[in-house]
């Protein structure tokens, strides 16, 4: 695996008035890594992720994502990342293919490469017969895969997944992680937030955020060793125990 650093931020801070949502966030993520970004409700995950995606401007601190400065090159960053949220932002009334085509066009892909990529994607997903079905008619599990495909069709350097498996049952989640493994094996960096701690085990490294700060950062085994815990669930409970915010 190449050791190239894809995300590198230092002391990233975001304040809303007197409230510090993200407090001196410092982390580095390598190419092809699956990085789990965990935290209790209200710990500041979403705010941090928005800054990394170039959607929100940090109050202080600096960093690069996909080689672009988050302070000065937000537009470039957006072009080189993929983003998928909990809500599977697909257009329900458009067909599967129309959705993919739309997102690919937004990212400036040529008609030829869109055709090639979508054909390949339909094949690997086994969705060839669903091409012209409106998205609202396909099951949730498929929607999720489709949303991931839409977010990665333009081969971004990093794909940000904001609770991609929220409210989805285990067997569907499992298949989804298979897609993430594939993306990672193709050299895509995957930055993912989740509530499901069993899912944290899928990641190469994870960070746990508490009250705007990263309280723990290591591989799942490393964390379990460090906190003398059997499961990630226990690790999380120990780390997040003192959380003041959120509740």
């Amino acid at each position: 695996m190449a050791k190239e650093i894809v995300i590198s931020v230092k002391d990233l801070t975001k304040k809303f008035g007197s409230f510090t949502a993200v407090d001196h966030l410092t982390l580095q993520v390598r190419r092809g890594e699956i990085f789990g970004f965990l935290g209790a409700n209200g710990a500041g995950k979403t705010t941090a992720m928005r800054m990394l995606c170039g959607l929100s401007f940090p109050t202080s601190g600096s960093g690069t994502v996909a080689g672009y400065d988050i302070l000065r090159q937000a537009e470039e960053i957006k072009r080189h990342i993929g983003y998928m949220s909990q809500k599977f932002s697909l257009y329900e009334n458009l067909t599967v293919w129309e959705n993919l085509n739309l997102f690919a066009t937004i990212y400036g892909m040529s008609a030829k490469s869109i055709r090639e990529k979508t054909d390949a994607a339909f094949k690997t997903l086994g969705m060839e017969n669903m091409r012209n079905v409106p998205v609202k008619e396909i099951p949730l599990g498929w929607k999720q895969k489709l949303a991931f495909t839409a977010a990665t069709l333009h081969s971004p350097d990093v794909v940000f997944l904001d609770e991609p498996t929220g409210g989805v049952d285990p067997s569907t989640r499992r298949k989804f992680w298979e897609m993430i493994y594939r993306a990672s094996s193709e050299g895509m960096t995957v930055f993912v937030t989740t509530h499901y701690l069993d899912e944290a085990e899928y990641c190469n490294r994870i960070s746990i955020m508490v009250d705007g700060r990263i309280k723990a950062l290591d591989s799942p085994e490393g964390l379990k060793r460090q906190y003398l815990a059997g499961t990630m669930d226990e690790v999380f409970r120990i780390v997040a125990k003192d959380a003041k915010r959120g509740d």
Partner: protein
Amino acid sequence: MKNAIDIQGLTKRYGKLVALDHVSLSISEGSLFGLIGPDGAGKTTLYQILTTLLSPDEGSATVMGLDVVKDYRKLRTEIGYMPEKFSLYPDLTVDENLHFFASLFGVNVKDNFDLIAPIFDQLQKFPNRRAGALSGGMKQKLALGCALIHRPKVLLLDEPTTGVDAVSRSEFWGMLATLREKGITILVSTSYMDEAERCERIALINKGRILDVDTPGRLIEGLDKNLYNASSKDMYPLLETLRTLPDVKDCYTFGATLHVVTNDDFNPDDAICKLRQEGLEDARIWPAKGNIEDLFIKLAKDDG
């Protein structure tokens, strides 16, 4: 022991779609019963019939001996329902929500305070906060408080912990255990397998049919046979390669490792050899302990 919930041949169709297909289920009084199944398995439909929001097409169901169709008015006072989605008034405060739901059942918040006291201890910190401004975990606790306010005999919880962080989930299950000790029957659905193991008995449901009902321990018995862990630095190639091996029936991601379901002829050492040939130098295979999730995958697969 008496049954709190009795379901006989319950069927519900939406046009062509069969949401519930002759479901029969008995839940004894005072138990913590789990309903485990993927999205679209029919869990919510079952809840809506038990809460008298829907009428079944065929079959019958009783809650505390009351028929869901005939005695629906009386039944409504006996149950506490917490729907899948947060369903309180976001613009009303914690206190206002509690008092409102209390008044719907004609009770005072104080009447059954002992029941909600553990929940209320935490909510008390901000009685005047709007429900919409609470964190996910707190919303869940408030919703539970509102469902308990009239001291129901049966609690019907539809995926109460979806989207809630691990610490809050764990607290929530602690509360359920306390409630059960007070004699309340709880039917809870979940898609978290670790939660399934905290139930006394569980029913696995898929495509509107009950696949199996038993204690979690007995359900996973015998599952360890022909179940292996596999791991490597390069997980995706490992997954792809394992699936091509002849004796492998199924292979799926399972957290830090892959789970491999095999037939009796499978030999781990041979498999490792083959994987090494494919360039997966660090591949390892060792026996795995099955859990509810493995069972579920197996049943869902057999079910087609």
